[in-house]
C-alpha cells in the first residue's frame, strides 16, 4: 500500500499538523485475520483509513467453475469458517433449488438444528472476542469451552470439526446417531447456564458499556445504502432477516423473534448477537420437539452418493455411484439465486448452469465483503482502540472477505 503523501520533515512543517501513519495489519493479533489498514492518525485519533484486502484470496469462484457440484461444498467451508455448516447447507440448497428437488421435512428440520448450532458458534466467538478486545479474557475461555461441545456434535454427525463439509445434495450422509442426540442434549443443558453467566458478566458491566456504547455506530440509512445485512443491519434497527423475509428449510414452522438494536454501535451488535443465541437455542428445542419421522435424505439418486454397502451389492447403486463420481449426470440449464441467513448476513449463491458437470458461473454474495467497505467511514474520528473493537464487533471474517 502506498502512502499518499511522502512523510518527510518538510511535509510535517508544511502541514503544521503532525499526522502519523500507522500500519494496522496485515498480520496483527488484534485484527483476528489478515487485513491491512493504513491509518492516518492525528495523535490517537484516526483521520483516514485505507483498507487493503485480498491477502487470503483463493479464487473460489474460479475454482468452482471446474468442480462438480458436490465438490464445491468444501470450498464454501472456507469462507465463513466460524459457521461452516450454514455455508455448506446454503450451497446444497442452491443446487436443490436448481434441480427442483423435494426435500423431506425431517431433513429440513435436521438442517435447521445444524444451522442454528452453527449460528450459535459464530455469534459466541464474535461476542467473546468483543469481550477480549475490551480486556475481559475470562468470558472468552468459558465460551470457547462451549464451542468445543458444538464441534463434538459436528464430529458425531459428519466426522469433521472446523471445515465441516456437512451433508450432501439432498440431505445428510447418515442418520444422526444416538450419541449425537446425546451431545446436542448436553449442549442444550449446559450452554444456557454459561451464556447467562457471560451475559451477566458483560451486559451491564460499567467498564464494558463505557467501552462499547456509541462506539463504531452506523445509522440505519447508511447501513442500508452500504448493503449491510445480518446482525450489523439489525443492530442499526432494520429487521431484515432472511430466515423470515424469504424462509428456507421450513423456518416458517418455528416461532422466534428477530432482535433489533437502535444505534448500530458495538454494544447493540453485542446485544443483538446475544439475543439471537437465545433465539437459536429456542429454535433448536422446537425443531427437536417437532422432528418428523422420515428419511434423512431426499430421493435424488443421480446426485446423492449411495452408501458403500449398496454400491458393492446393488447394480443400480453402482451405476449411480459411477455416474456421480465421473460426472455423467445431466444437470438442468438454469440460473438460480438462493440466500441463507449466514453468521454475519445474507449469504447468497448465484449459480448459472449451462448443463455441464460444473457451474458455468458461481458468484458468492459474501456479506463481509460488502459491509467491510463501510469500515473506514465507521472508524473515522475514533480512537485506535475503538477501531479494533469496531472491527471485531462487525465480525469480519477474512476467509469470507477474500473468498
Amino acid at each position: 500500500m502506498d502512502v499518499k503523501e511522502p512523510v518527510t520533515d518538510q511535509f510535517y512543517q508544511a502541514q503544521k499538523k503532525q499526522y502519523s501513519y500507522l500500519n494496522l495489519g496485515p498480520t496483527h493479533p488484534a485484527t483476528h485475520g489478515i487485513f491491512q489498514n493504513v491509518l492516518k492518525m492525528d495523535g490517537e485519533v484516526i483521520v483516514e483509513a485505507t483498507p487493503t484486502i485480498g491477502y487470503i484470496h483463493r479464487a473460489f469462484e474460479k475454482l468452482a467453475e471446474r468442480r462438480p457440484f458436490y465438490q464445491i461444498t468444501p470450498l464454501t467451508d472456507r469462507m465463513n469458517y466460524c459457521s461452516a455448516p450454514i455455508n455448506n447447507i446454503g450451497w446444497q440448497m442452491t443446487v436443490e433449488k436448481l434441480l427442483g428437488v423435494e426435500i423431506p421435512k425431517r431433513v429440513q428440520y435436521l438442517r435447521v438444528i445444524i444451522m442454528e448450532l452453527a449460528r450459535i458458534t459464530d455469534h459466541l466467538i464474535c461476542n467473546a472476542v468483543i469481550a477480549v478486545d475490551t480486556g475481559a479474557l475470562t468470558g472468552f475461555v468459558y465460551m470457547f469451552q462451549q464451542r468445543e461441545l458444538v464441534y463434538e456434535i459436528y464430529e458425531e454427525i459428519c466426522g469433521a470439526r472446523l471445515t465441516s463439509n456437512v451433508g450432501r445434495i439432498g440431505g445428510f450422509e447418515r442418520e444422526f446417531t444416538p450419541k449425537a442426540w446425546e451431545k446436542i442434549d448436553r449442549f442444550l443443558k449446559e450452554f444456557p447456564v454459561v451464556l447467562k453467566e457471560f451475559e451477566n458478566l458483560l451486559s451491564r458491566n460499567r467498564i464494558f458499556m463505557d467501552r462499547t456504547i456509541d462506539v463504531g455506530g452506523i445509522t440505519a440509512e447508511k447501513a442500508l445504502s452500504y448493503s449491510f445485512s445480518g446482525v450489523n443491519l439489525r443492530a442499526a434497527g432494520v429487521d431484515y432477516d432472511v430466515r423470515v423475509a424469504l424462509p428456507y428449510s421450513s423456518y416458517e414452522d418455528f416461532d422466534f423473534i428477530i432482535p433489533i438494536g437502535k444505534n448500530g454501535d458495538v454494544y447493540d451488535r453485542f446485544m443483538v448477537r446475544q439475543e439471537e443465541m437465545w433465539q437459536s437455542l429456542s429454535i433448536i428445542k422446537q425443531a427437536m420437539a417437532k422432528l418428523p419421522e422420515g428419511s434423512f435424505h431426499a430421493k435424488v439418486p443421480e446426485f446423492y452418493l449411495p452408501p458403500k454397502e449398496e454400491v458393492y451389492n446393488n447394480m443400480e447403486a453402482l451405476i449411480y455411484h459411477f455416474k456421480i463420481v465421473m460426472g455423467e449426470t445431466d444437470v438442468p440449464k438454469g440460473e438460480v439465486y438462493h440466500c441463507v441467513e449466514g453468521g454475519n448476513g445474507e449469504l447468497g449463491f448465484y449459480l448459472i448452469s449451462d448443463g455441464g458437470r460444473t457451474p458455468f458461473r458461481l458468484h458468492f454474495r459474501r456479506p463481509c465483503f460488502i459491509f467491510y467497505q463501510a469500515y473506514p467511514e465507521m472508524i473515522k474520528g475514533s480512537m485506535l482502540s475503538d477501531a479494533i473493537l469496531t472491527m471485531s464487533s462487525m465480525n469480519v471474517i477474512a476467509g469470507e472477505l477474500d473468498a
Partner: protein
Amino acid sequence: MELDDQEKIIAVVNKKFEGEILQTEMLYDFLTATLKKDKIVEIIKHLYDHPDTKFQYLTTLCGIHFPDLNQIAIMYQLHNMVSNQRIRLKVYLPIENPSVQTLTTVFPAANWMERETYDFYGVIFEGHPNLKRILNVDEMTIFPMRKEYPLEDQVREDKNDVMFGR
C-alpha cells in the same frame, strides 16, 4: 412474485424508458430483466425513487463472461425490503470495450462490488471513484475470471482432463 407485481415493475420502467427492456423472464423465483446498457444507472435510480418499486437495497452485483457471445454481462440484484420483492437486471457489454456507468452514485455499496468486477473481468465502470484491483495483486495483467484463462496449466501432459474437465 405475483404476476401483477411483475407487470407493475416492468410498467414503471417502460413508462419512462420506452424500449430499454429487451427481455423479461422469470428464472425460478427471480424476475430478470435484460436491458440496454446505456441508461442502466438512470433506470436503477428510477426504480429506487419510484413509489411503486422502491428498490433501495443492492443485494449483489457481478460479472459473467459469455465467450460464445463475445460479451460480458453485468448482473444487478435489487431488493425492496418493504414489499419483499426482488429483481435482477442484466446488461451485456462487448468484450472489446466492456464499460458501463458506475452505480456508486446510487448505492455506495457498489464501490467494492464494481472493483471486484473490474478486477476479475476488466469491466470499466465510468465515474467510479477508485477503480483499481481489490483481491488480486496490483501487478496482475490479466482479468482472471474470463473464460479464456484456464484454471490449470493446459500444456501439462500428466493430467489429461479431456474427458471430465471443462
